[in-house]
Every structure is written in structure tokens, then in C-alpha cells.
């Protein structure tokens, strides 16, 4: 088979807690910096990031098979390929502490794997699938509508006149919340659809767990 595009593959992050932490800190220097500024112990950060960081990996039709960690997948002749969908977005959350019982903003940081892009929340075409985070109700937490970042204009090399609106590299969603004092967890799902310069990949829906402390 001839492949006319880049295949997605990258190290199998976040399947081992400490490994996940160290790798993510390299790739997301901001996260490590934030942790330092927040005076969070390295051990606590490692544990927290390991819990939170996951790689978007599960196809919409495969919700029951969400995978932690990216997967290398053979394109053909590999029975595991269907069971281990490929990954295009990494979610890496730092430990966040917000004031209790007051409106505060959680920042949810994602990274699109290099060489790929995903549609923004407003992709400018009804046929394109927007990146959307859906939140589940959480006890003690009131959420306001998510704030999605603006995308950037992108054109496929073969169609320079057609503009789409995408996220590339790092992007951050902001979630306004009011939470009671204590540790909180919000379950969410991220739906997105990725492409590279010459190919696209089916939409995926992956679980995201948002952990934070209000005090």
C-alpha cells in the first residue's frame, strides 16, 4: 500500500505514571513551570498529572474502549489496530487550585500531535466536526459555558483557496466554575476530528477527567 501522508505515531505516553509525568513535563514545559510556581510537590504533581494526562485515543464508535496512552498502530495486517485506535490529541492537566465558593477559571490544556490539526470549535463548515468538550454534572461544582480558543486558518496544500479553522499545537479551553471547598472531579468527553496535510481520520471521542481543589 502506498501511503501519501504522514502516519501518526509517537511514544506511548502516560501508560506508566512516572514516565508519563516526565515525558509530559518535557513536552509541556509550561506544565512543569506552573507546577513549580504553584509550589506543588514533585511527587504530588507526578501523581496528579499521571491521573489526568491521557491521550485522546478512542473512536466515537469505540467509546467503551477508551485507551490511556498513544498507540502505534500498523495500518494493515495488524489485528490490534482496530482495538488500539491512534491518537492525535494529548490532554495534560496540571494540578489546579482555585478559591472556594467564588467564580474561578480552570484551564484545560491540550496538545495536538505535531503534523496534525483538528477542527476548532467553530470550523466554518457544517460538514466539519468541531472540537467539543462535553461535561458531566459534578457534585459541588457549578460550571458556566466553556470558553474555546479561536482557531487558526488552515488550507490543505492541495486546496490553498479553501480555508478551514483549526487547532494546531497547544490549545487551552477555559472553564468557569464555582466550587465548594474540597477536591473535585469533573468527567468530560472530548470529541474531535484530526487531519494531516493529505489525510483525515475518523472523529474520536475520548474521556477527560478534570481534577482540581477548591479552598
Amino acid at each position, binding site marked *: 500500500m502506498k*501511503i*501519501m501522508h504522514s502516519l501518526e505515531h509517537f511514544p506511548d505516553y502516560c501508560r506508566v505514571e512516572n514516565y508519563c509525568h516526565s515525558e509530559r513535563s518535557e513536552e509541556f514545559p509550561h506544565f512543569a513551570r506552573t507546577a513549580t510556581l504553584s509550589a506543588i510537590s514533585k511527587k504530588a504533581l507526578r501523581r496528579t498529572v499521571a491521573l489526568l494526562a491521557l491521550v485522546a485515543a478512542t473512536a466515537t464508535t469505540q467509546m467503551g474502549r477508551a485507551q490511556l496512552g498513544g498507540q502505534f498502530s500498523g495500518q*494493515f495486517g495488524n489485528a490490534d489496530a482496530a482495538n488500539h485506535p491512534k491518537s492525535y490529541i494529548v490532554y495534560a492537566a496540571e494540578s489546579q487550585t482555585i478559591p472556594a465558593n467564588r467564580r474561578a477559571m480552570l484551564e484545560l490544556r491540550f496538545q495536538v500531535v505535531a503534523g496534525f490539526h483538528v477542527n476548532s470549535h467553530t470550523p466554518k463548515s457544517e460538514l466539519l466536526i468541531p472540537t467539543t468538550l462535553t461535561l458531566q454534572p459534578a457534585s459541588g461544582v457549578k460550571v458556566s459555558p466553556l470558553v474555546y480558543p479561536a482557531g487558526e486558518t488552515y488550507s490543505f496544500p492541495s486546496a490553498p483557496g479553501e480555508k478551514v479553522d483549526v487547532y494546531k499545537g497547544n490549545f487551552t479551553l477555559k472553564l468557569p466554575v464555582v466550587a465548594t471547598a474540597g477536591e473535585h472531579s469533573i468527567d468530560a468527553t472530548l470529541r474531535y476530528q484530526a487531519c494531516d496535510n493529505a489525510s483525515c481520520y475518523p472523529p474520536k471521542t475520548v474521556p477527560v477527567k478534570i481534577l482540581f481543589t477548591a479552598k
Partner: protein
Amino acid sequence: MMAAGIALVLWSGWHNLRERGAVHTQQPSHIVQPSGQAAETEASESAESPSPLLGKSAPAFTLLNLDGKKVSLSDFKGHPLLINYWGTYCGPCKVEMPWLEEFNKKYAASGFQVVGITYDSEVGKATIARATKQLGVTYPILLSDAKAEADYLSGTEILPISFYIDKTGKVIEVVAGQGRKDEIEDKIKETIAAGSK
């Protein structure tokens, strides 16, 4: 950590090579990333892992078209075919499809036929029909099912992906990702010729 960093660097270089191959060169690289491997280097550009369908008879299918009628591979028996998997959300697919429409007409006298199969049938016929109309596509558009996906895609998620099938029903080429227009036409010519040998 070091290994992962090196892998990322290598991956990045390989990825760029892939893009150059896809977009800028006459001879795009032919490569499949085997499961479990960390990264490819330039040297591995010559590697190629063929689709399991290559050289074999195209798997039979019976799928619904946008009018709700059943269409089978056997309906095209004796015709050189290009079976093109695509999705309504797939930009590169929609770049290729007008080219395929053009070639479908240009080589009709040779019995050549393009058959589109929609990967995202769940969006509904109306959306698919609207998309194909916008693209000016008139060749048959079929709605994929699980069996056809298993038989043809074998777990790959790449769109577009094209299967070139000669008039004897043998798969002679499989191309994943958007190709160049002239390359697609060359493969169509090869497909027509192959069935004539």
C-alpha cells in the same frame, strides 16, 4: 525519556519527509509504520508494507447507494475500478473527488468506473448527498458497512484510501491519503491496461 525524545525527533523528520512525498514529489514515499516501532528514518522510506488485498481478488460487497438500492461489486464485473473510501469531514477526500469524477467520464469508454464508498454513513444520506452534489460527483456513492470496512480497511483509519482493481477483479494498487491528480490518472491508466494484459 531520552529515547522518547529521540523518537520524537526522528518522527518529526520522517513526518516531514512524508509530507514532502505526498505533496511535492513525483514519487511519494511508500511506507507503512509497523505496529510497535518507535520511529522511522529516511532510510526506511524505501520500505513498503503492502495492503493484504494487494494482488488478491477484491472482497465482495453489497452496499446501499444513496437511493437505498443495493449495489454489489459483482455489478461491475469486467470493469476496471477505482474504489474510493471517503468521508464528508475529509478535506483531502473532497479535493480528490472532482478529479475522480473527471477521470470517471474521461475513461468511461475503457469501461473504467469509480465507486465511492462513504466511511461516515452515520451522518445520513441527505448530508452525503449534499456533499457529493457540491462536489459535482455523479459516480456511484455507496454507504459502507462493517463487513466492507473490515474487508477493505483492515483497521486503518486513513481517508481517503483508494483501491485500484483491474477488470479481472484483482487489486493492483492501494493508495492511502490524497494523491496528486497526475498520479491518480497514471494509476487509472495502469489499472485499465492491467486488465487488458
